[in-house]
Every structure is written in C-alpha cells, then in structure tokens.
C-alpha cells in the first residue's frame, strides 16, 4: 500500500470507525470486480460510509491526497463502471440503504443510494405505486447504480429510463461538497448531465425518485415463433400499428434453452424465438390493443400464444426472461453480455449477420433483446479453460458492436460504457465529440480523480486544450477513428 493510501486508511478509520474500512488484502480482493468479471483490479482501500457527510469527508480526504476513487453500489454492473483502482479508494454505498421519505400524494420517494431498486417498489406497493425502471437485476441493483448508469429495463420502451424517474439528486462533488441537482429549476439541466454519467461527475448520496401508479390492468402474452425473423416481423407490425406495449422482449432458441435449464419456465418446446408482449393501462384500452397484438403475432407466424391468466403465470413468463443472463451459466462455462442498439427495422438483417459471425468463428451467441427499442443483448459463450477462447469471444463481441454502429445504432443501450467499451467510443464519436464530453467532465472534476479511466478511451488531463491540433490525430493515423 502506498504511503498516501496508508495515510488515508488511517484517516478513514478515524472518520468511519474500523468497521467501515477494509484493508485486509484477502477481503479487498472480493471487491475486485462487479457483475463483469473479465476486468479485475483489487482496490487499495474499501470504505463503507453510512451517511452523505461520511462520503463527503472521504472524497475530501482523497482530493487532498490526490488519490482516485470509485463509487460502487451492489456491484452488479455489466460494463465495469465500478471497477476499482488499485491505487485508489472504493466507496461502497451498500450500507446507505434507508428509504428516507415516502410522499404518496406527490408521487415521490427519497432514498439513499444503496437502497435496492425493488425495495423502492416494495415500500410503496401497498399504496398502489411502484418504481418504474426495472433492470433484470432489480432484485439486487442499487438506485445509486441505476442513476450512475441511467439503467433501463424491459419496460423502458413505454416508461423510459432512470433519467425519467429521478426528480433530484443530492451529490457529493469531486471537491467534497454536498449539493443538490434538481430537474425542475431554471438554468442548465445538470441533473440530466449527472444521471448516466457513470459515476464520473460525483457520487449521489440521496435520490428523489418519481413513483408511478400501478396500471389498472396488465396483460402479458408469450408468442412462440419458428424463427427470429418472424418474431421480428411481429415486433415491427405491433409498433407499426401504433401500439406502445409496456414491454416487447425477444429470446432466441439458445437463450430459451438456458432459461429453461435454470428456472424451468416452460416456454413452448421447439420455438426458434419467443416474444413476450406486455400491455398495461386502462382496462378498455388494454383489451382492445391486446386483441390486436394477438392477431398480429398470429399473422407473423406465431405457432403458439399463451396468455398469462394471473400474476403467477405472468411472473413465470417473466422469470425466464429476467434470469436469462445468469442462466446462460447453465449452458456455458463463461460468457460475455453484450449490449448494443440498432434501429428496430434493422433487426432481421443484423441478426442474420450475427448468425454468420457465429458460424464463421465457431463462437456460440445467444440473443436476448428489448425488441421494442432495438436494444440487443447478445450473450457470447465461451469456455474460459480453453486457451484463446476468451479472446475469440471478445473479438466476436466487438464485431457485433461494429454491426450496430454500421446500421446506425449505438455501442450501448443501457449497460453503460464503463471500462469495457471505452475503447469503442472512437468508433462512434470523433475526437472533437470526445473532447467536448471531456470538457463537461472537467467542469465537475478538474483533478480527474472521480472514477477515472471510465467512459473515455484515453485519459486526458483537464489542462490540455481540446480540439486544437496540428496534423493528423494519432488515433486517426492508427485507423482507430475517423474524422467526419
């Protein structure tokens, strides 16, 4: 441990008590990665603060020593956004888990960042409300992490991402000040900048979330198709008919196999793809549109349609989908979860290309997607015991992102850039774009200590003048980026 880290550890012990500081190397290693295990770094020190004041004191101490720090919630992220720094401090918010206030008449709740997503819903369900963002990890992911990653979920097609459900954030700025960002004040929408900044602009310590009224009716169906193509046709037809489902999810044969092995969800056997369509809203509207959806699915070639008769049946349909990522562990020793976006209409074409990629490379790819908004989650399977397999999987995974960009999409829909995709940023953005983003970051964190090494491909100090260059940029020269 460096001397500055050792000094900090002592200071933290005085601030948080011995219980709130971890320095034992064996214990530290359990924090070496989040939900994405192919990037690992053992943190220098871990702290477990219990209040905003403690977070601020820790951040101030880091700033004074010039030591980098990273915030972490439940550690379920899939882009390595909470990957620690070996020379830095990991600030874990898991002990900040109080629901501070519930204000039903104004449809809002105030929670600490370590509160688990689903616990917000549990706290207000009896009043007929819920917290809408529903990432698949909602049973464990923290609201603070949702804010950092601007998490979506199956239902963001209709209800939007975390950004649409956060009304205010109390944050600790990188200089250790506690301040509040709100959505409704005049001036710049700094809350909009903060949500989804992947923890690079500060640490949120209190979040005011919007509560959504539980819809009058929810109807869910599961449609089985021979192929992904016919499933894709159904998706386009449904959206084209002007229906905005709460969710449209598609799974291919391989991911169905995994989910079946994990949770015995009982999806129709022999399906090349299943589509889960959920409609919610007023009774009459849902009844009318549901009939339409059923008709469109049959027209597109669905060979079996199951309609959830009650909450238990609905939960079973969703269980297969929600467990799909982790369930892939049943059919493959290791896998990469990819997250890319394409225009909905490009779905059949891109899936065909992914199939071809998989055939060429011999790397199996299972597909799960939020079909309604073109958010793909290809799961790239490999055996980590086999030499070179991880690299090949990585290559296929990267090639899928290229396909997304090529078709006018994006390298991430909801998992974030983190450390995993920072190298793909130049494929999507020019240097000028990236420099402009850096300037925003420097506005918040001029010292570059707050979750450094994430989002951007090349760390740059804030003193460097962006944009003004002589000659060709090195990245362009290396063929890694293009100037448009």
């Amino acid at each position, binding site marked *: 441990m460096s001397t500055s880290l050792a000094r900090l550890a002592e200071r933290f012990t005085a601030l948080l008590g011995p219980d709130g500081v*971890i320095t*034992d190397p*064996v*214990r530290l*290693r*359990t*924090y*070496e*990665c*989040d*939900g994405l*295990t192919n990037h690992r770094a053992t943190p220098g020190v871990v702290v*477990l603060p219990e209040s905003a004041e403690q977070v601020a004191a820790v951040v101030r101490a880091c700033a004074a020593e010039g030591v980098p720090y990273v915030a972490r919630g*439940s*550690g*379920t992220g899939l882009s390595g956004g909470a990957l620690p720094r070996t020379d830095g401090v990991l600030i*874990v918010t*898991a*002990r900040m*888990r109080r629901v501070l206030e519930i204000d039903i008449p104004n449809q809002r709740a105030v929670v600490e960042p*370590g509160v*688990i997503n689903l616990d917000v819903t549990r706290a207000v369900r009896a009043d007929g409300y819920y917290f809408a963002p529903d990432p698949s*990890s909602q*049973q*464990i*992911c923290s609201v603070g992490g949702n804010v950092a990653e601007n998490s979506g979920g199956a239902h963001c097609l209709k209800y939007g991402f975390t950004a649409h459900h956060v009304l205010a954030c109390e944050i600790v700025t990188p200089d250790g000040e506690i301040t509040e960002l709100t959505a409704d004040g005049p001036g710049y929408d700094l809350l909009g900048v903060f949500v989804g900044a992947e923890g690079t602009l500060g640490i949120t310590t209190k979040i005011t979330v919007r509560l959504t009224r539980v819809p009058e009716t929810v109807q869910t169906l599961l449609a089985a198709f021979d192929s992904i193509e016919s499933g894709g046709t159904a998706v386009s037809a449904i959206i084209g008919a002007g229906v905005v489902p709460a969710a449209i999810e598609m799974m291919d044969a391989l991911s169905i196999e995994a989910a079946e*092995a*994990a*949770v015995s969800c009982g999806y129709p056997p022999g399906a090349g793809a299943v589509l889960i369509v959920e409609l919610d809203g007023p009774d009459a509207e849902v009844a009318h549109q549901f009939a339409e959806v059923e008709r469109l699915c049959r027209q597109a070639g669905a060979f079996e349609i199951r309609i959830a008769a009650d909450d238990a049946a609905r939960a079973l349909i969703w269980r297969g989908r929600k*467990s799909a*990522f*982790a*369930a*892939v*562990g*049943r059919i493959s*020793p*290791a*896998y990469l979860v990819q997250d890319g976006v394409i225009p909905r209409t490009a779905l059949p074409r891109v899936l065909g290309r992914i199939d071809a990629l998989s055939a060429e490379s011999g790397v199996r790819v299972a597909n799960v997607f939020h079909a309604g908004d073109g958010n793909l989650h290809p799961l790239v399977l490999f055996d*980590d015991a086999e030499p070179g397999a991880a690299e090949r999987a990585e290559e296929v995974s990267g090639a899928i992102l290229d396909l997304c960009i090529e078709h006018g999409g994006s390298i991430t829909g909801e998992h974030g850039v983190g450390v995993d995709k920072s190298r793909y940023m130049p494929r999507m953005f020019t240097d000028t774009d990236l420099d402009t983003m850096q300037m925003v970051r420097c506005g918040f964190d001029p010292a570059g200590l707050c979750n450094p090494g994430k989002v951007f491909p090349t760390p740059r100090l804030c003193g460097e003048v962006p944009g003004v260059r002589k000659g060709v940029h090195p990245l362009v020269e290396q063929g890694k980026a293009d100037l448009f």
Partner: protein
Amino acid sequence: MGAPEELPKLLNDCVHCGFCLPTCPTYVLWGEEMDSPRGRIHLMQQHQEGAPLSDAMVGHFDACLGCMACVTSCPSGVQYNRLIEMTRAEVEREHPRSAADRAIREMIFSLFPYPRRLRALRGPLRLYQRTGLDRLVRRSGVLERLSPSLAAMERLAPPLGKAPRLPGFVAARGERRATVGMLTGCVQREFFPGVNAATARVLAMEGCDVVIPKSQGCCGALSLHSGREDEARAFARRTIAAFERVEVVVVNAAGCGSSMKEYADLLADEPAWAGRAEALSARTRDLAEYLVELGPRAERRPLPVTVAYHDACHLAHAQGVRAQPRALLAGIPELTVREITDPGVCCGSAGTYNLLQPEAAAQLGDRKAANVRDTGAEVLVAANPGCSMQIADALGRQSGGKGVPMAVAHTAEVLDASLRGLGPEVFRARTS
C-alpha cells in the same frame, strides 16, 4: 462427500451476478461483499488458488449461516450448500482454532447430538428454571462475561415440562394406509417432547402405523453443517441402519430432514453405504410434505386462531417445502394463516450458529421477531426446534423480560389440536 477435484467446477458455476446478495442474512446485516455468498465463493476461489486460510477468511466462512437462501435465489444453479460444506470440512481439517473456540465446539458436539446426555441435563435445567435461578443469572450477566456462547445456550433453553416417552410403535387409527418410520431427533426429543407426541398422533390419526426405532440416534445434521464430516458419516450410517425396514421416514425437524436427504452425497464415496444412503435419502420426507402427499383423511375440527407461519431455512430453501405446511394449516377450519415479511431471511438459529455466533444471531433474531410480531398473530408456527427456540428467545427479549408474548408451536401440534378438537386455549396457555 464431494471429491476435492469437483471443487473448481462447482466454484466456476458462479458468474458473479450478485442475485444472492439480498437474500443472504449476513449481507442484509452488514452490507459487505465478503459476508455475502458471492464474496464467500470468491474467498473459496482465492483459497483454491493458494491463499492460505487466514483468520479473516475463516471468520467469513464461520459467519455463514448455511441457510441456503442463496441456493434458492441463484439463477446459475451454484451448489453453495456443497461448497460451504466442503469448505467447512477443509477449515476443520486445516485451520487451528483458539483454545476457547475449540472448547465451546467440543462441548456443543459432545452434548447436542446425544439425546441421553441432553436428558441428563433436563433435571438440573428444570430445577434451575423452577427455582428462578435463571432470572438471577441473566440479570447478573455473569455468563455473558464468561462466554457469550454459554449465555446464548442458557437463554435459548425452552421452559421444560414433563417428557413423556414414546413407545416403539403406534398403531394406525382406522384402516391402515402406510407404515412410516419416525425420527425423534435430539433437541426435538428432549426439549420439545410434545412435538414428537403430536407428530405420532397425527400420523396415526391419518392412518399410518408409526415405527419409532429405539436404535436411532442423532441424524448427524449438526456435524454435517459444521464441517465435521467423519462424525456426520458415523451418525448417518447408524440412522440408515435404524430405518432400513420402513417405506418412508418422516422427519419433523427441518435441519434433520435436510441432512438425511443429503446422505446420498455424504456417503457417495463409501461403496458399502452409497446405495443404502441413496435409498434412505429417497425415502425421507418432511412431515408436512408427507401429509400432503398422503392426503387428508381425518376430520379437521375448527381451531379459531390466527397463526404466523415461519419458513425454516432447511425446510424452505434446502428441501423446497413451502406450500405444504401452509396448505395443511389453511385446511383447518376457522384458522387464519398470516405471512411474515421477508420469509426467506433466516431467524439466526441455523443449527449451532446462535451458539457460535451469538451476536449476529441475536440481530437476526430481533429482525425476525419484529416481523413476526407485526403479523399480529397469536401463535407462531415453525417446523424446526432451533427456530422455535431462537424466535421465542428474541420475542422474549423484545418484550423486555416480560416473557414470550406469543405462543410458539410446531405444525404437528396445530394439526393435532385440530384433529383432537382441542380449542385454541391449548396454545394461549403457553404464553408466559
């Protein structure tokens, strides 16, 4: 049990998704990665890669309750139950414990698995309770200073009454539907004799001949769940031999039933026993599980009482028995079943956990007791003696020493009361 070469594969099943975290009692308490299933698996991996079993590492394994809530929540099918059992055995083999820790463990394992030794303790314990010496000792805090484990043991002992001996055979009432063996357990038999009597009566009233072999002893659950493998195997062999002649072995203690269903794994490497172990595991049923399979025949009489049903971890998580006890209770006319918030989180009993980790156990007991009280029920129903003692203790503590504010009963006792037409007073009389 499981060959060591299996360990890397079992470890590799974990994909680090974190779905187990919110279901883990120690993660719920402390919010630390290394006290979560995912973190403990990471520690096991570190050890596998050569990191020595340090005191810190062992501390986190010891802090695991073995409640198996993580097994229920894991989408990747990680067999954490086997991982922690293998790890505990390794700890017992390799890691030197402090003299005080060794002494307390020796005491526990030379007392609890032996019904005769427990019986010898009953007399002095009854005297101790009836003279009021127990209250004096608790007020003085002398045991707490001497050893928190001893203090926990003293506190947890339930008020003892007479202990009727069960005969070796109880004949079915009416036409016989089955012949079942009954495990009497250790703590169940000596500290909760009423539960065993009720179990035998309910089985008989439902048309079962009940065989209660005298040769049975401890099933080995406590040893198995604490990494004492050789001891567990010896107990298992004896239990198998005792029950080989019955069609079904009915068990009314969750921890015992769960370990008997694991005999096949435990004795897999012993050619002479592997087959017999597998057969016994396949014939083992929890009481509620068995009664539902059998179907009700005896008349249920009304029992106007509100009960809260507590899921014992070794019943719900380890054996997947959740619906059956609820169905049995709901089948009693005029009885209301209430659900306890966070039913899947352990009460802190966990075999010997409340004796070896009294502090964490007390915190979990307090959480559970608060949730139990919130149901407003008159009777708490649990199907494991450890849970009953643990929750009764926590309820008593929360009432500020004014006694346990609600009755605690086993599913068998509630059914027995209904089948025999006893009123709810039989439970109300228990509130002290």
